[in-house]
């Protein structure tokens, strides 16, 4: 029997590796950001940038391999389209984490100093939204009917992210900083928030797919 389902087993393992890669992107992103907030642009931060790039490239490779396998008619056509959509949506989350680190590295953005704690709170919510998404994804493959609470939780984290973002931006524009710095931090806040937006987008897609798969 296992001979007949070798390709399915390959896909199952591939999806698990892909989710693992997204998790790794997050695990590289968070310490990188904390190091940036604490010590600014330095060797430790740049190391995180290259690690994030490596993790994101690995996620891309796995995604490409999965897409090829899915297109080789290994799944029912309905499921194929749904899974391709989910892969794309989750990959967007990984891309956003890399984008934030690259943006800081390329634009040499000075750390926000007095807003460190607010940034840490924002990062905490981003982490929560991505981790909840990944949990929901794993549950989806076995119990599509139990995905809904995870989707709602991601939604909640994303709303909290939005709230923290607005608070930070209010503080930024109230500070006695040069306008160019204010605008750089403004961009950075929005880029960080875009990670939880991407997680929310992926979870909505997951929700629809789970409804379709529900028996």
């Amino acid at each position, binding site marked *: 029997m296992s001979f007949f389902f070798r390709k399915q087993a390959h896909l199952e393992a591939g999806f698990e590796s892909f989710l693992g890669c997204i998790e790794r992107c997050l695990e590289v992103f968070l310490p990188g950001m904390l190091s940036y907030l604490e010590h600014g642009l330095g060797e430790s931060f740049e190391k995180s940038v290259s690690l994030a790039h490596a993790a994101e490239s690995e996620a891309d490779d796995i995604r490409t391999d999965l897409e090829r396998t899915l297109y080789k008619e290994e799944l029912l056509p309905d499921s194929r389209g749904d899974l391709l959509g989910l892969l794309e949506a989750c990959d967007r989350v990984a891309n956003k984490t890399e984008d934030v680190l690259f943006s800081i590295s390329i634009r040499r953005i000075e750390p926000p100093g007095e807003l460190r704690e607010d940034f840490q709170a924002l990062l905490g919510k981003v982490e929560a939204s991505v981790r909840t998404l990944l949990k929901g994804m794993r549950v989806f493959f*076995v119990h599509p009917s139990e995905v809904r609470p995870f989707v709602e939780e991601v939604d909640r984290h994303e709303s909290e992210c939005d709230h923290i973002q607005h608070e930070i931006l209010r503080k930024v524009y109230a500070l006695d900083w040069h306008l160019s710095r204010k605008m750089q931090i403004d961009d950075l806040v929005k880029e960080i928030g875009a990670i939880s937006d991407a997680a929310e987008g992926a979870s909505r897609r997951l929700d629809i797919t789970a409804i379709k798969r529900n028996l």
Partner: protein
Amino acid sequence: MYSYLLGSLYLGWALGSNDAANVFGTTVTSRMLKWRTAAFLAAAFVILGAYLEGAPGIETLSGLARGQTLASAGLLSLAAALAVTVLTFLKLPASTSQAVVGAIMGMALYRGQTVNWSELLKVGICWIATPLGGALSAALLYVAGRALIYRLKINMIRLDGYIRLGMILGGCYGAYALGANNAANVTGVFMGTGLFGLRGGAEARLLALLAGGAIAFGILTFSYRVMVTVGRSLYDLDPFSALVALLAHSVTVHSLAVVGVPVSSTQAIIGGVLGVVAVRGLYKLNLRVLVMVLLGWIATPLLAGLAALGVARLLLPG
């Protein structure tokens, strides 16, 4: 002499080209299998089913009104074929089983043959049991299958693999059941006419094999269009529900083949779809399709009976 078989063979061809959609329609339209592969599998399993289990149905049909001559058998097959063609042209779903029984009754009326009412009652009950059996077995299969999937915590990707394999194996079983059940519709009326100089079981098996061949020919030559059009428009289900409906159809049609009553494969699958829909509390079946099925149910035996009376009056010697 063999020209009397033409109406029957045409009926078999039409049956194959139409009813293959019930067993491999979803598999082909969802591109799980290429039409060519599906048609080959369906044709092979129809022949196998007809040869191995087609005889009881043949005996039932021949027992409805004994004493057919070659000419009356040939003409009533022609009448049934005409009725099915007209109804198909009118886009009404016509059951070959009902057409043949209707034609047998029409011919019996014309020739003053004795009708075996208890056998006819058995056939009538089985016609009603077909959609009901399809619905009931689909509901049971769905509930049991869903419980099993939840209990075994089957990964969605693996489940897809199982469904894919199930659709192919279920399609083969469905084709086998179709051959076993519907062979009688094609050549059953020739039982006892001495067409091939055989008697008893040998005659029934040869007639069943011939019927299987005619149905298979229909599948191989003309089933593609029906599969991609009728297969899509009849029902719109998720893959697991489609598999359940297919299995329910196959179990129902096969069970009735064992009982020896030819029934409509289309009514069995519609019953299966309704069973799934009922369990899931969904409404996905086209109501118009249901009304058409009911209309076809009444119109088919009636029209076939009238056609048999008409052709007998026109063409039957003596």
